[in-house]
């Protein structure tokens, strides 16, 4: 197997792991471009491009970033409980003298977690509003232009 065949097979494999909708629509064409552009472009540049495309399609277009953010948020909520659980003493936590220990660390983690969740809620609302406005604009403009062309 030559290097050229290996890079082509690798490129095709990377195309196969793109999100299904994108793959169905564009994969065959991208492979055709790879065959055409390989003459003038370095195969490694094209491979790098398809890797970037893969990451972009899964994280930005297919919304995997939302899943990752949700998991991070969940992990942040679980983290204080895990931290508490890992402490050798039982609840309520007391120092050796019997007085309750300082809870600044726990409070700070909790506050950070709340701030992060609030930020995510605001960002999601802003993003969803902007997206729906843009979609609505696109629909209205298409209708306007279609009426004009009649």
């Amino acid at each position: 197997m030559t290097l050229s065949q290996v890079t082509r097979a690798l490129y095709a494999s990377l195309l196969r792991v793109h999100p299904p909708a994108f793959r169905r629509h564009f994969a065959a064409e991208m492979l055709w471009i790879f065959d055409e552009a390989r003459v003038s472009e370095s195969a490694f540049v094209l491979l790098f491009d398809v890797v970037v495309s893969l990451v972009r399609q899964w994280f930005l277009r297919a919304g995997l970033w939302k899943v990752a953010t949700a998991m991070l948020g969940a992990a942040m909520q679980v983290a204080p409980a895990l931290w508490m659980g890992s402490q050798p003493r039982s609840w309520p936590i007391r120092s050796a003298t019997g007085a309750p220990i300082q809870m600044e660390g726990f409070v700070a983690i909790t506050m950070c977690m709340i701030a992060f969740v609030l930020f995510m809620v605001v960002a999601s609302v802003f993003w969803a509003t902007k997206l729906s406005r843009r979609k609505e604009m696109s629909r209205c403009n298409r209708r306007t232009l279609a009426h004009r062309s009649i």
Partner: protein
Amino acid sequence: MAEDLSPFLPLSPATLHILLALAGEDRHGYGIMQEVARQSDGQYKLGPGTLYDNLQKLMNQTMVEEAPPPTQNDDSRRRYYRLTRFGRAVLTADVTRLEGVVRQAKLHFRPAPGRTK
């Protein structure tokens, strides 16, 4: 009544180049890549990943649509794309915006009197 195209502006460099490449004629993906390289004197090169990511977005926004292939199309994998009326309107609006930017830049960069040697 003029449509409000502001949510779509300013266009990203990749989007602007793709729309410009399609402004003259319908092209397939590789044709768009070549035209973008030609328009920018080879300074801006689109990879297939960037191209199709943007084409997908533009098709969702109804700025670009698939066009019927010409009769002499020898490869079934080639698909042709064309600008819609809406896409042309957005491109025109962005070019007008850029003209304003260039005008301002020329005014701004005009050498001040007395400073020229």
